[in-house]
């Protein structure tokens, strides 16, 4: 920004060219300074851009590692969904069977808890889904 203002100041000096050696020297020094400053600014900008880029790629790769982007993570997610669902159904069934055995009411609780287990399985899967969404929104 400051550079732009300086460039503007330069305008009248260029018009007064050829007035004297002193003037000429001053002007050329100012121009040199301006050129140097412009180069410095350009370099700073380039450095900042590079830094930003580096940080972005680092963030990107970190995100790719942690979010569901990588094939390995998709695989583990699929396996997780499956095992959570199956485990809930199994636990529900086992609970129902156990209660039936203790209370002698076979097969009432087995059926009830089988259904509850299936519902818990869906609930587990739903929770994994919302958890993933939440992580992505973060």
């Amino acid at each position: 920004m400051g550079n732009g203002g300086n460039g503007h100041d330069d305008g009248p000096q260029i018009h007064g060219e050829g007035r004297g050696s002193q003037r000429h020297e001053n002007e050329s020094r100012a121009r040199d300074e301006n050129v140097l400053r412009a180069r410095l600014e350009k370099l700073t900008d380039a450095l900042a851009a590079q830094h930003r880029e580096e940080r972005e790629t680092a963030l990107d790769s970190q995100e790719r590692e942690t979010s569901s982007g990588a094939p390995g993570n998709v695989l583990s997610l699929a396996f997780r969904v499956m095992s959570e669902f199956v485990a809930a159904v199994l636990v529900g069934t086992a609970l129902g069977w156990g209660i039936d055995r203790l209370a002698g009411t076979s097969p009432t609780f087995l059926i009830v808890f089988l259904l509850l287990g299936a519902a818990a399985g869906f609930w587990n899967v739903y929770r994994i889904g919302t958890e993933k969404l939440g992580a992505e929104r973060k």
Partner: protein
Amino acid sequence: MAEENPMDPIHQFAIKPIVSLHPFGIDATFTNASLFMVVVVLGIAGLMIFGTRSRALVPGRLQSAAEMAYEFVKSTFDMAGVHGGTRFFPFVFSLFLFVLFSNVIGLIPYTFTVTSQIAVTGALALLVIGIVVVYGFVHNGAGFLRLFVPSGVPVALLPFIVPIEIISFLSRPVSLSVRLFANMLAGHITLKVMGGFVVSLLGAGFFAILAPLPFVMAIVLTAFELLVAVLQAYVFAILTCVYLNDAIHPGH
């Protein structure tokens, strides 16, 4: 059957006693599984002790590995958002390293995969859930039971929701242990079957020209198993973090 025995894919999971021990009538026989658990623990201890010995500013290979392991688990731990649960970090770190080392050491031929035994993964999962339950009740008192009563649910639905939540909670150790155990078991059986194919094709006269196919498959599967081994350790650690988070902050 007897001549097929060397190619039996289940054979590798057999527990063989090394030193028979029966103190106080308890069967504490030192088996090949115990041996490899010791190997795993020694491996972890070796990595950490020798890796952190020099404490160089520019880390060597071993120190780099130790630091990477620490930073990886630390970032996972922070990402899972276990707020106010830093005291559990050593537990999660040890758990992750134990599972990781068991899985990876088990991939070396002629070794025994500790995590392919459901007794081991089940014990680990029960340890996690036990800590969740005990710490949950100690930290929150009866408030821990809010875990089973989600907020914002109409009272009329509670008789259905509460059993579902309880089953869902009880299914956690099951899924945690079965997932790790099944992944390791299935992976090693697949590898063994592929290797068996190579051997039987080589002995099948003309069809020996097909032998490279399962051989290539076995190589690809070995790489894949390495991925699964690391991934399952990661999944085990991150789910432990999620469950611990429930113990610290019940009522989601």
